[in-house]
């Protein structure tokens, strides 16, 4: 059996005195889509940020594609990596944010080619050609020269997805990618994500879109208070939840 794409073992994270993650264990196989549900403040975003080392762990281990995130193991000692090494590992993990975070001083095309050019040192032509393909793939071939402020929220989020895909990530993290969108724009972003899942991308998606989770996820995880309360295939967790907290949460969301 090949190594899973993401393995979390007892991941802990504190902010000051508050324990935000209190031992998260989970595994995401290659090509799998995992949806992460949970009430506000349960630590979903914090967990995603730990996965690409935007937050430092206070305990436990995270492996992406068999490699430790943020550390190098030397026997029983974990050495924190240099910023440059952290950066080069992050380059294999895509992340899409709730509020898009496109670079406002760059056009859609410039947003997409920035990392391939600076991190992968690709030539301008090669990066641009690839970027145009990706923009076409998310349905924005005609918006290459638009600035983010000239795009709708849904269009901005699709550019953000194209920007992540340009680095050819092994794993994509989505943190409530549709929560900042007007209802009529949610569909276009979910369509892009559905296609991405169908193409075999490994994805971890924090979302409140239960219908999307039911349709696309291989595995659904319900988190509350910094722990995994319940996990399993969407049919089980979403249709016949075993825990009271999951039931009451789903009752509110659906």
């Amino acid at each position, binding site marked *: 059996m090949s190594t899973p794409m993401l393995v979390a073992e007892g991941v802990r994270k504190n902010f000051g005195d508050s324990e935000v993650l209190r031992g998260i264990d989970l595994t995401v196989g290659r090509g799998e889509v995992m949806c992460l549900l949970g009430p506000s403040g349960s630590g979903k975003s914090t967990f995603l940020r730990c996965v690409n080392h935007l937050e430092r762990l206070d305990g436990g281990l995270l492996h992406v594609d068999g490699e430790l995130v943020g550390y190098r193991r030397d026997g029983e000692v974990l050495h924190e990596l240099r910023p440059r090494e952290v950066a080069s590992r992050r380059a294999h993990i895509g992340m899409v944010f709730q509020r898009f975070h496109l*670079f406002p001083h*760059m056009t859609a095309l410039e947003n997409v080619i920035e990392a391939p050019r600076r991190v992968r040192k690709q030539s301008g032509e090669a990066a641009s050609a690839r970027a145009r393909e990706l923009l076409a793939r998310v349905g924005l071939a005609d918006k290459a020269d638009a600035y983010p402020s000239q795009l709708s929220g849904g269009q901005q989020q699709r550019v953000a997805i194209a920007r992540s895909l340009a680095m050819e990530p092994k794993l994509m993290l989505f943190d409530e990618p549709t929560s900042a969108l007007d209802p009529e724009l949610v569909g276009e972003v979910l369509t892009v994500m559905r296609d991405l899942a169908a193409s075999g991308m490994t994805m971890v998606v924090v979302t409140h879109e239960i219908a999307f989770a039911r349709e696309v996820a291989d595995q659904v995880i319900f988190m509350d208070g910094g722990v995994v309360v319940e996990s399993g295939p969407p049919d089980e967790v979403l249709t016949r939840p075993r825990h009271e907290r999951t039931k009451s949460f789903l009752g509110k969301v659906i």
Partner: protein
Amino acid sequence: MSTVPELRTDPASSPVPGPAPAIKPLRHPVRAACGVLALLCLAGVVWSVAKNPNLEWHTVGQYLFHERTLSGLGVTLYLTVVCMLIAVVGGTVLAIMKLSDSFLLRTIADGYIWLFRGVPLVVQLIFWGFLGAFYQRLTIGIPLTDVVFYSVETNTLVTATVAAVLALGLNGVAYAAEIVRGGIAAVDAGQREAAYALGLTPAQTMRRIVLPQAMRVIVPPMGNEVITMLKMTALVSIIAGNDLMTNLQSIYSMNFKVIPLLMVACVWYLALTTALTFGQRYLERRFGRGTTAPRGGFGARAARTTGGEQA
């Protein structure tokens, strides 16, 4: 049920037939009167200055492009450009130090700003001018040993111009640092995270993502700094720097044509300030890229405050 058609006939809510009514803007008679009064006062002042025989327009004309005026102008421009370069580069370094995670670097940056902002510029100028009285020789070597790589008489290295550059430049660094820090802090933290998540290093993120956006906030106050710097170069007359003001002063101390030569100074300083204002406007447009689109969203507010147009 019968009230509904009655409401429909209400003249205020029913569309008016015929041509659309003309709009008559509100008049502001008091505002207009004040404007006219101010204009009259201004005209009076300009008239009385222009007709004042002590102004000696022909003397102004004679000295406007005088050799010493132009050489002084050259020195003033040189001082402004060099000192501002030092201020911007040093200020950026200091701002990054101030925002670093290292307590030591932050404290050093704070100490620098505290010292160079706290001591009056005149004192700093005189101090650098008299550095030779403090250190007779400047020496580069290994401390506590006899190894010396380079040694020089202070006064041959730190000339009046060098002293002026040091004083104005190092002082400018402290002010520029605060401006740059404010600009960097104004960039949304999400921008940095997005760049990191793509695999950019901290240095690339700063250079490619954070600083270009910070520029929008930095340019207007930095423009003020340049103009202030231009005028502060007049202070170097204290340690004799051959700048525009020093040269004009030395001319009028010989021929006593104080007012016309001050007029020459006004004309040149105003001309330079005007040119700088245009330069600033260009930079504001250049760095306002992408923030001035007609659509709402996160660029809309910045678009209103910079008032530039689509690049």
